């Protein structure tokens, strides 16, 4: 074993103490009929060899020189100090803080995380985190069903398609029906959720309306009107948001969202081909006892010192078993720590700068493509930092650019038949003027 501390003499001493002749005797209770017939795995490697093997595999990935890919996961600067914090092994090699007296570091950082998410979203309470934005949304939808005692969910088709698939899986468990609310994808359309269509599907059997804002196409949804439509029938408004945008956009708590879910990856978490990320969920205090997952609260110790503990655990599986609010056990504590360190490192001004730069570069990008006559914006509504652009012969050109190390966004036709030749292009603070220029040149060259 690569990390064994035991010498042969140690093992002999342990066997003698136990009173068995060999380690095999400790496995004698495995019935002979079910013992393995095969265990063919590669031979061990020392560090020098294993590094070479992992470097070989990492090099098989071709990290694009320039990428406009977003669609739910975003390339942002991860400040060095954030890497430093999450690299502290007092955080990374601890576990769920079951013994609070020796876990105040983790517990306080989660309390700070919950506070930061409340500040961003304008909500009263946030959980200690979820697996990702999609499972946080699914858990929020199930929570809305518990709160309203209803068993149908309405969701806009302008919500991230992969997220909608996760929601469908979670809802299939308890048999919750999902109704889709169409977005205006017609030629010259806004690309936004149709308020009238939402009102038409909402009735007193619907637990919640789920809307993403900015939506999957980057568009700013009429959240107030959609919330009114949901509230008119006693349904909840579940807002799926993007945390960087909340530096500029009105927080969900201000436009009447009942529950908020988000993917926290943009807050200092590497892309890592999709995970680990961190799901955010926030709610009003009145709903706290129906929230799934861990919560940390402040309290005091026997001598009156302030301290933090896992709290309201009567909601959770290890206490409630089959009656729990969810089966969730772990959260994504280390990713939540990265988000906490990130938000503290950039502060309100830094987050604003990131958001501002992203919106400006998205506009720069759209304008440059339009001015060069290479394509046109597909939707009319104002957008945040992602924009849907129709480019003739997009599939071929997208592939040709990828060959050159330029990823020209996310092909929308894969999930939306109406959106042929349409690419979803994302900008962040890392998008430079030169990137925009080179995209335009490369598109020209493939015309």
């Amino acid at each position: 074993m690569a990390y064994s501390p035991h010498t042969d003499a140690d093992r002999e001493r342990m066997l003698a103490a136990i009173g068995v002749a060999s380690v095999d005797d400790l496995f004698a209770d495995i019935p002979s009929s079910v013992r393995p017939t095969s265990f063919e795995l590669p031979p061990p490697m020392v560090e020098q060899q294993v590094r070479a093997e992992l470097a070989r595999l990492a090099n098989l990935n071709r990290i694009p020189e320039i990428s406009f890919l977003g669609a739910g996961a975003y390339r942002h600067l991860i400040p060095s100090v954030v890497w430093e914090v999450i690299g502290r092994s007092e955080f990374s090699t601890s576990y769920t803080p079951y013994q609070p007296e020796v876990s105040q570091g983790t517990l306080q950082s989660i309390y700070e995380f919950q506070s930061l998410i409340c500040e961003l979203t304008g909500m009263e309470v946030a959980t200690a985190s979820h697996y990702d934005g999609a499972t946080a949304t699914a858990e929020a939808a199930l929570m809305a069903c518990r709160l309203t005692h209803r068993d149908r969910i309405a969701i806009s088709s302008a919500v991230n398609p992969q997220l909608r698939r996760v929601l469908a899986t979670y809802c299939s468990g308890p048999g919750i029906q999902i109704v889709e609310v169409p977005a205006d994808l017609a030629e010259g359309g806004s690309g936004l959720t149709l308020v009238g269509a939402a009102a038409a599907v909402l009735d007193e059997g619907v637990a919640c309306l789920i809307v993403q804002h900015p939506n999957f196409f980057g568009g700013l949804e009429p959240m107030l009107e959609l919330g009114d439509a949901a509230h008119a029938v006693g349904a909840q408004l579940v807002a799926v948001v993007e945390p960087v945008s909340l530096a500029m956009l009105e927080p969900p708590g201000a436009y009447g969202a009942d529950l908020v879910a988000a993917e926290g990856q943009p807050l200092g978490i590497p892309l890592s081909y999709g995970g680990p990320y961190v799901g955010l969920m926030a709610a009003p205090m009145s709903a706290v006892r129906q929230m799934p997952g861990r919560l940390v609260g402040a309290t005091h110790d026997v001598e009156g010192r302030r301290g933090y503990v896992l709290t309201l655990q009567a909601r959770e599986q290890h206490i409630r078993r089959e009656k729990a609010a969810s089966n969730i056990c772990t959260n994504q504590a280390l990713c939540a720590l990265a988000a906490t360190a990130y938000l503290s490192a950039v502060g309100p001004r830094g987050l604003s700068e990131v958001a501002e730069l992203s919106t400006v570069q998205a506009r720069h990008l759209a304008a440059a493509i339009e001015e060069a006559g290479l394509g046109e914006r597909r939707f009319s509504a104002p957008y945040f930092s992602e924009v849907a652009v129709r480019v003739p012969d997009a599939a071929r050109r997208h592939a040709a650019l990828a060959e050159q190390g330029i990823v020209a966004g996310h092909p929308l036709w894969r999930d939306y038949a109406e959106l042929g030749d349409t690419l979803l292009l994302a900008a962040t603070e890392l998008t430079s003027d030169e990137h925009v220029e080179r995209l335009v040149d490369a598109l020209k060259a493939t015309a």
Partner: protein
Amino acid sequence: MSIAEGPTAADDASGRGAAFHSSPGGEELTIVERLIFDASREGRRGVRFPQPSSRAQEAAAGQPALPASAMRSQAPRLPEVSELDLLRHFNRLAHLNYAIDLNFYPLGSCTMKYNPKVNEWAARLPGFAESHPLDPDALAQGSLAVEWLLAEQLKEISGFSAVSLQPAAGAQGELTGLLMARAYHRARGESGQRTKVLVPDSAHGTNPATATMVGYTAVTIPSNDRGGIDLEALRAALGPDVAALMITNPSTLGIFEDQIDQVITAVKAAGAIAYMDGANLNAILGRFRPGEAGFDVMHFNLHKTFSTPHGGGGPGAGPVGVSQRLEPFLPVPLPTLVEGDADEVRRDAWDGRSTPGARFALDWDRPQSIGKVRMYTGNVGMFVRAYTYIRSNGAEGLREISDDAVLAANYLRVGLADAYDLPYDRICKHEVVFSGRRQKRQHGVTTLDIAKAILDAGIHPPTIYFPLIVEEALMIEPTETESLETLDRFIGVMQRIADQATTDPDALRKAPLTTPVGRLDEASAARRPDLRWRSESRAW
């Protein structure tokens, strides 16, 4: 004393924290760290970003502006701190934490083994860390290769015919497994009648909670007096209304189900799915392959068996292995080798070579799939670490892991048998469950008191009060990476505490005295929840 009037770090002269870190600066290093919000000063800056160029701004001006009605009127009250203040804050918080990298962490059921640092090196390689989940397959061959190779290795380790890496954690692996079980019954037209999931009384709470999430009714099966599942009770409960049995093996008592062959046979004869909770796989590598033994589905915990860091409570990763009959129902997408010979690619990887012409892709075209359980393909950062770990150990290393883990647990079992009650006194696997009932009945010292006294010895306590079927349970999992000296020291500490329970029980009830804070009032935390900082609240 109310919280608001509590002493602050500055006047804390109790010497708390001494067991966990030495403070060269003495009283200047606060033991209680203020909230980051309380360190904030308006206008102070940490990380800065460039301004958009005038060219970008001019171009942007022609595009639709962000409507004023959608904008927030007040900036979020994020802390305004310098980078150094930020770093000190988190480093101080780190000092308040216990961790594997500091000392022994025998937390039963959690497999707190050493997390090798080369795994971290690998996960941070830019080739992996900067790979976007929606990058075209052609650009993501490295990530896909790791996923495919890891899945192949997990198949060989577990004896299952296919593996999905997608579930984000063990509990999500359970959800995935039961959804596949239901899809299987549905495909056979039996989903209406099969409504129950059988769960032993020693199971993790996630098992019954998962059954509920899938719309099943959890039915508890008792354990027998040897700590195994009661086979007769199981047989009596099995019928055409049962969808699945979820069983942890070795059980949460650390005991291998020595009638596991009969358990599997009975479950399958009833037409139900045999689910194995793989939380305790660290005990049986190379000794028992659940898939080969006849189980239909199992989740792995990469953060337990395969050494990915627990991170203070995540991220983990909970891949599922399945038998052939569940394969059609696996989540999408599935990383697949679409060009090249699988045996050749596997062999080449053994030798650290890339196979010319091999090509991987994501297979989305699986019509019977249960769908997606999370975004993208899973916690890929964890897959890189687990793959690194498997390659470092190789076949013989993996076998040795389980041998040494079981050896260590049995060494503790024998070493502590006089000091504490052992409700199931037989050879255990990777963990051993004692009872503190003697100490409670004879001296009024609870298992909680014992756990807190262990903290004062500078060691993290075992899992306590679980499994539920053991009174005053102390569930100890030493893992294979702890030296004999550490195990001996732990035995010494546990014996001393047992002695102290007879001579000075009051002292144990006051523990811990050396930790950064003392016992915390959990009841008032739940009664009056304070779950966030508020700008209007008093500074500490």
